[in-house]
């Protein structure tokens, strides 16, 4: 068999491993990250979970190990500007209330999404609620540059902490709904998230090396699109590719799916903002 270039790339560093994720260790500015760990107990079909970083080429991986090379950091800087910018009828910025700066939010990302007053809330909801109700400002568009810059800035404060979302109690019905969506085979191609990211991670699908579809690095900077990609935008793209009618960004369905997918990463370190091809 002629070794195709992508197979050659996938084999580098594998040293006979059973799957095609590589053996590299992610270390950012001297801090080691958990990119592989035992699957959380609720996961029936996987024994080990891996960060998407482990499935990328050495070139893409390299962009994430040094913050000076990470193109997402430009957007994080914009997030800092937005954090300090006065907006809305109340004449306030985020910093007016959060005087400790974005650092106040260390650990928050690890627990998102979560249920507040019976409603499932994701980071974008928290941001827009505060903009509207406290600042009297216009809500940001879900996948807009300003929104995702802020999500990335807040997420970065939890970088290196393990994902740890709650799935029981109030969260249980949302989690169940998300799980159902994850295993539903949508569209004319009749493919579920699990068909690609559980049954086939490590395999090539055309030019793409399938990962486990984890979201511990989101929002991620996507080289192809040269911007930060939201979780819901990624979900939309994957469902659209099955020739299905997708759900809307910010929909109850995608929030439930986000909780479920986040729970599949419980135990992996947060890498926000990650870099992808």
């Amino acid at each position: 068999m002629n070794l195709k270039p992508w197979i050659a790339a996938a084999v580098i560093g594998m040293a006979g491993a059973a799957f095609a994720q590589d053996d590299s260790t992610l270390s950012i500015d001297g801090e080691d990250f958990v990119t592989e760990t035992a699957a959380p107990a609720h996961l029936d079909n996987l024994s080990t979970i891996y960060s998407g970083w482990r499935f990328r080429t050495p070139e893409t991986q390299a962009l994430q190990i040094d913050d000076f090379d990470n193109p997402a950091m430009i957007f994080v800087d914009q997030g800092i500007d937005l954090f300090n910018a006065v907006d809305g009828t109340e004449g306030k910025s985020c910093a007016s209330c959060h005087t400790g700066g974005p650092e106040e939010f260390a650990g928050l990302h690890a627990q998102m999404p979560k249920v507040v007053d019976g409603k499932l809330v994701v980071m974008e909801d928290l941001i827009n609620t505060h903009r509207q109700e406290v600042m009297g400002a216009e809500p940001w568009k879900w996948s807009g540059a300003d929104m995702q810059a802020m999500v990335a800035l807040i997420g970065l404060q939890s970088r290196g902490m393990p994902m740890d979302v709650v799935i029981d109690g109030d969260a249980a019905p949302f989690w169940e709904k998300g799980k159902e969506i994850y295993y539903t085979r949508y569209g004319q191609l009749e493919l579920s998230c699990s068909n690609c990211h559980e049954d086939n991670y490590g395999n090539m699908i055309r030019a793409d090396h399938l990962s486990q579809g984890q979201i511990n690095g989101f929002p991620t900077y996507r080289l192809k699109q040269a911007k930060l990609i939201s979780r819901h935008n990624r979900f939309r793209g994957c469902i659209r590719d099955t020739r299905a009618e997708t759900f809307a960004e910010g929909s109850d369905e995608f929030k439930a799916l986000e909780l479920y997918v986040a729970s599949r990463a419980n135990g992996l370190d947060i890498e926000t903002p990650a870099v992808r091809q």
Partner: protein
Amino acid sequence: MKHIIGLGLAATFAATIVGAEAVKPTQVVFEDGAIAASLSGAAGDAENGAILMNKGSGNCIACHSVDALSDLPFHGEVGPPLDGVADRWSEAELRGIVADAKMMFDGTVMPSFYKTTGFTRLGDAYTGKAHADGEVQPLLTAQDIEDVVAFLVTLKEE
């Protein structure tokens, strides 16, 4: 069993008479996952089949590698390599697998290329929007299936 064979014959008969009249996706008769006769009533064109393996709604090499198509980049690994597939399966079986692989392999991830019903949230191609009212087109036409099958039967190992 008898009526299935009967239908199959009737379809072949009809195809012979009307020439270009294809078997509709909803009327295809599977026997142990195989389809006995040409869906279009005509023979397949292996050259066009090779093109469909790479392009458009076929894109078989997204999931399968095929050494005979090694000039094309990026063969997938989701399905088994198709080299020598004609040694493993008859033409009728290959036709059945390409038309609706779920009839041969229960629950397989391989899409059903000649099927128009039973989808969840069917979209309008790759737009992410809902499929509008109106007829659903299968991923491949009857003749496309025949062309792909004509290519697959050439995949013999020596």
